[in-house]
């Protein structure tokens, strides 16, 4: 069976269209990863600039 769906979330459940600013380096070149992160009020992102994951309080 294909592993196309190994990651169950992706751009299709991104919270919104607005760019999210990386709190570590300030870059807007960030990628949405997962709608629920370490808790229900966290959204998981990855910064393509400084290559660190971060969460958004949402």
């Amino acid at each position, binding site marked *: 069976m294909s592993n196309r*769906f190994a990651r*169950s*979330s992706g751009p299709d*459940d991104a919270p919104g269209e607005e760019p999210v600013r990386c709190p570590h380096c300030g870059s807007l070149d960030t990628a949405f990863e997962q709608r629920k992160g370490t*808790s229900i009020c966290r959204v998981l992102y990855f910064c393509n600039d400084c290559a660190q994951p971060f969460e958004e309080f949402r």
Partner: protein
Amino acid sequence: MSLTTDLDADLRDSAAAFLLAVADDDFVWGHRLSEWVALGPTMEEDNTLAAMSQDEFGHARLFYEYVADHVGSDLDHLALNRRAEERRNTTLVEADHADFADTVAINYCYDEAERLLLSAVADGNVEELSARAAQARSEEPFHREHADRWLDRLVATDEGRERLTRALSDALPRAADYFAFEDAATAELVDTGVLATAPADLRPEWIEAVSERLVEFPLEDALDAAAGEPALNGRAGEHTDELDAMLDGLHPEGHVGDHPIQDYQRADAR
């Protein structure tokens, strides 16, 4: 309008019974979702189902707490001590299931219905109750999107399509009791404005939405059953042995109906 001061005792009791059903739905579904922890089909889904479970318990609390505060009783008693015959959840959510396809089928059918019921409460005129329903409603889009994504993903393989079809044909007939509240009681709630719409009047909208979304599946019989008389009416306290077993599992041996936690204090307050 205030439930406490503006309604007579009978109407308050009707409102409480209705709200306990809504809370029981969330409580039972929250519990079933929590059973996937450490067993999810993917690590990410494990996390997601746990988050959904947490939301459901939060929603259950919104309504159990309202009943406890305004009509009487204790939050923990309402949530944890009531036996199956006292519960008023839809039988849709109580099935003990191990197939993820069942989780997706129930997620979809339940959340599509709950959206309508929560709006009937949110659009009612009991301010605090309306605010609580609106809060629950605001936390649900993520759950509906979850169901929607998985309905699409699972059909990508023949096995997925087959298992999901089976799961939906099991879930839909059970959902026949979701809106099957006793008419006389809910009519009063609508007349006094506690509810903006009677559950029975919401049912056709649910049937239409579900029929449309699931049009690609061979579910004619199941959809007919969903629109017909329920075989088992959870709204009238009719439940399966699975709910009994689930509730037994909440308590340590020998403590059913008598939750041990009587007092909760922060360690530094003692």
